[in-house]
Each structure stands twice: as C-alpha cells, then as structure tokens.
C-alpha cells in the first residue's frame, strides 16, 4: 500500500525503541547487581527475604538505607548531567561542549572551596553556595559573551577565560590551605558515598524540574542543528532559544554539582554515545542519553565502591578513567554505528 502511517523517520523511531528497551533492562539488572555487591555481598534471595520480613536486620538496613538511595542518586545525577550536556551541545553546535564549558564546574568549585576553606562554619549550606556559584559563573560567562546576540564561539572563548581565572583562584586557595584539603578534594572528585534518602529527594525534585523543562527544548535544539539562519527561517528566536536551553542545562548541572560535587565526562560522553546509537534527533537522542547515563553512572559507582575492597573510589574518578578510553574506542568504531 505504501500509505502506512509514516511518522518523521519511522525507522529510527523503531530503532530508538529497541535501544531504549535494552537500556531499561540493563538499568534494572544493574540496580539489582548493585544491591547485591559491596563490602558485604548478598544473594538476591537473601535481600528479598530480609527486605520483606518484618524484623530489622543488617541486610535490610544496608540495602534500603545505604545502597538503594545511592543507586537512585546515581541514576538521577546521570540523567541530569547528560541532559545538561546534550542541550549545551545543541546551543554551541559543538560536540565538545559540556557543563564545564559554561563555568558550572568552576563556579561551583570556587564557591565550595571558599566556603570550605575560608568560612568553614557555613559548610552545612555548601550545596546552596555551590549552586549559586555555578549559576553566577554561568551568568558571568554569558554576559561577557553577549554582543548584540549570542555567538557560540564567543561563549566558548569567554568560558575558557573565566574558567582559567576561577581555576587560578581555586588553586591559590588550595595552596594556601594545603593541610586542610580533604573536604575540597571530596567535592572536586564528585562522590556518591554517604548519600541518604534526603539527598535523593532533593535531587529528584531538581531533576524532575530540569528534565520537564528540557522537553520544551527538544524542538529548538533540533532546529539549531540546522544552522542559525535555517532556525530563524523556521521561526525560532535564536538568541532567546540559546539562552533558555543554556539556562535549563546550567540548572541541571548546577543541581548535581551542588548535591554530589563534580563528576566530569558524563555530560560530554553519554550524549555522544547516544548520538552514535540513535542519531541526532533530540526527540530520540535526549531520552536515550538520559537512560544511558543512568546506566553508565550506576555502573561506574558500583565499580568504584567494589573494585578495591575497603576503598571507595569516587565515581568522578572512575568515570574519567574508564570513560576516556571507551570514548576513544567508540570514536574509532563510529563508521559502524552510523551504518545502521
């Protein structure tokens, strides 16, 4: 008949469905595995029995109070970071953009280091300061880049400049306080240890708001991929659209940084892999990124807390160490991923 209801790119929709289905299964399996492994290893059956019994037990406490919140946090943080990175890549039309580009990491870092080293009495409110610092750095970079409109190259350059100034300040403070750096280091190498349900709740609210807003960013992000003039022709307010997308992206990234510290590479790496798997249409690529980064971050954190017994490797470090080589591998194989 040939008159089958053809949606925009029905082939890729099918493919995306398959990819997302697989990712969901992987995510569930990872969650189960992550519940069972750790300093005490339990079988699934032991966990089920303990969790569903009325009595209090060590297993129940460990799984429900320690491992499960951590698992949920990993998924939420991953989702937020990859959505943030994916949106920024559309704003900049540059595959190397990530939340660090617009100063989120450096800004949060500056605020955190200032609080931890100069005003330690305020460290209870660290997340708030980190969030504000991230937002301020981002606003500063954009206002420096503004010149009758937003030009991605100018944002990147102004980002490089401001990141370097903030970086210098951070290094200086650390040098002056080199005996008191454990808190700072923990923040700089984002870690999920010590996460409790209360943190998960806060992160869930942030992520829900940010991810809901990013739904409205899908179409503008797609239009921006066609070039500024084409986007304008299609009725997109290019400057406004870049600002809104950046704001959503910065919000998501600042939220994660303020809750768990800096976790690099997820925002850059995962949207790329998603693009290779399902193509560049944000309608499909964004949800795929979100699911995929949940898997990636959960896997990285699980590895980080189990690979060396008795030692917690922060998830940020695991991500960078494993993500780099894996990314290179994907890059070399890219032809294969595009063939389908």
């Amino acid at each position, binding site marked *: 008949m040939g008159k089958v*209801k*053809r*949606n*925009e*790119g029905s*082939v*890729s929709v099918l493919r995306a469905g398959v990819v997302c289905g697989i990712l969901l299964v992987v995510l569930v399996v990872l969650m189960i595995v992550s519940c069972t492994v750790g300093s005490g290893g339990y079988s699934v059956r032991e966990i089920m029995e303990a969790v569903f019994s009325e009595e209090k037990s060590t297993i129940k406490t460990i799984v429900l109070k320690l491992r499960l919140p951590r698992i949920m946090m990993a998924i939420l943080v991953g989702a937020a970071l990859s959505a943030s990175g994916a949106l920024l890549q559309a704003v900049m039309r540059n595959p190397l953009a990530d939340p660090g580009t617009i100063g989120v990491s450096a800004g949060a870092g500056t605020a955190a280091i200032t609080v931890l080293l100069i005003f330690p009495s305020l460290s209870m409110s660290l997340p708030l300061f980190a969030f504000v610092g991230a937002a301020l750095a981002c606003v500063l970079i954009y206002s420096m880049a503004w010149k009758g409109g937003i030009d991605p190259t100018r944002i990147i350059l102004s980002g490089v400049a401001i990141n370097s100034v903030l970086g210098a300040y951070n290094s200086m403070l650390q040098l002056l306080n080199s005996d008191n750096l454990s808190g700072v280091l923990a923040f700089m190498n984002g870690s999920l240890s010590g996460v409790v349900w209360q943190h998960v709740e806060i992160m869930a609210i942030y992520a829900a708001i940010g991810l809901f807003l990013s*739904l*409205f960013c899908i*179409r503008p992000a*797609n*239009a921006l*991929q*066609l*070039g500024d*003039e*084409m986007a*304008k*022709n*299609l*009725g*997109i*307010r290019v400057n406004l659209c870049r600002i809104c997308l950046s704001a959503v992206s910065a919000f998501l990234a600042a939220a994660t940084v303020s809750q768990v510290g800096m976790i690099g590479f997820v925002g850059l790496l995962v949207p790329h892999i998603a*693009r290779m798997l399902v*193509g*560049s*249409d944000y309608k499909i690529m964004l949800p795929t990124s979100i699911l995929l980064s949940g898997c990636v971050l959960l896997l990285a954190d699980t590895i980080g807390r189990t690979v060396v017994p008795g030692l917690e490797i922060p998830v940020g470090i695991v991500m960078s160490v494993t993500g780099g080589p894996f990314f290179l591998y994907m890059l070399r194989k890219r032809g294969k991923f*595009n063939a389908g």
Partner: protein
Amino acid sequence: MQVDCKNIQVGYGESVVVEDMSITIEKDKITSIIGPNGSGKSTVLKAATRLLNYQKGEVIVKGKDIRRYKPKELSRCIGVLAQKHSAPADFRVRELVSYGRMPHLKPLGGFSVKDNELVDEAMKTTNTYHLRDKSIFECSGGEAQRVWIATVLAQNPEILFLDEPTTYLDVSHQMEVMQMVKNLNKKTGVGIVMVLHDLGQALEVSDKIIVIKDGKKYSEGTPAEVITPKMLKEVYGVEADVIHLEGRQKPIIVYKELD
C-alpha cells in the same frame, strides 16, 4: 501578497552595506537579484527575510512590518534558504524536509496527516521523493540543494527566497535546480526570489530582475529591459553584446573576446 522593502538601510555594525533601498517583490513571479560581488545582494535578501536586522526603513509583508510579526507567523508567509546551512550527518532526507513544518506545529504537538502530506508533496515537487530514506550526506550537491529547497517549501510559504541556489553546482545541476524553480513557480504559483551570480540564468528564468550596485538599486524590470550592454558596462565593467537568436525567446549575452 507582496514584500515591500521601503528605504531600508542595512549593515554590519558600523559599516553600511545597503543604503536607502526600495524594492517590491510580488507573489506569482520569479524575481532575480543580481549585482557584482559585495554589492549587497545577499544583504538585501537577508534583511527582507529578517535574517538580518535593518537599521532604517521598513519591510512590509501583508500590510505589517516584519518586526511586528511573531517569528512563526512570518515563517508561514515567507521561506528563505540562506547560503549557509548544515545538518547532522545521520539526518535522513525525509526527516530534514519535515523540519519545514515546524512553524505550523503546536508546542509539543505532533505531525498531522496533512503535515505528512505536505512533506511528501514538497519532496515530490522538488523531485527528491526517491531520496527520502537516504542520509543528506549521501546526496549529490544538486540533490542536496533540492532537498534544502524542499525543506523550505514544506513551510508552505507564499514567497520563497533563495540565496545563490546554484553556486558551487556544476552546469547540469544548475540547470536542474533552475528548471525545478521554474516548474515550482508555474505549478504552485509560489513567488520566488533568487540572488543569482549567473546572468545567463537570470535572463533565462526571471520575470523580473533587480540590479544592485554598491548597495544601491541600479535598475529593475523585465530581463530584456535590464540586461543591456550599457548595464553590463556600468555595473560589472565588462564589454558585452546582448543578441537575439532565431528560435530563442530570450536573448543571450556574448562577452567580448579576451586579448
């Protein structure tokens, strides 16, 4: 419908590229804008389609200045294909052409049956329907140009602006695009405005030609009125004859032999 540019001044920053220019573009016609490099042809086209802000004057579409339109509302009246555009390598032709429907969609709304039909129709009109499942990077230069035109056409505009649609194409692809543009205009009545470099093409395809020199309008009229040895000398600084051949409706330009 028509697009009226009244005394517009356009420039980049301090420098003024186009000064006090007034042109009128009508629906149903093919209008070409010609002129030497740097004369401001593309700048006029961009100003008339709000890709570039003008500093003075006004551009009136359907009795209203284009600055007072909502962006999407204007996108439903006029479509413009600039010289610069790009698409991710994995985009299929049909996917790309579908973006032309964007100004007609509700926020978060999907495609209706009519949207899908218009996308198919735009591809059929531009002879790109058979390419629909190909990636845009597998298309030849001429095919890709037709796909981009299909994208703008899917907007269902009343007037279509094309900035140098044949530049970088070889002769056969140039002819293909020109023939398609002509058919499009005849069949659907959509008005077409093109910035062209090739005077022969402008002569062949246009109902009306606007000549621009140093950011000012030099002359306008039918091809026969505008393309004259005098204009070629004064605007382009070349010696040429415009001669009529038997059996051909349009004259041809014969440039002076080089020494």
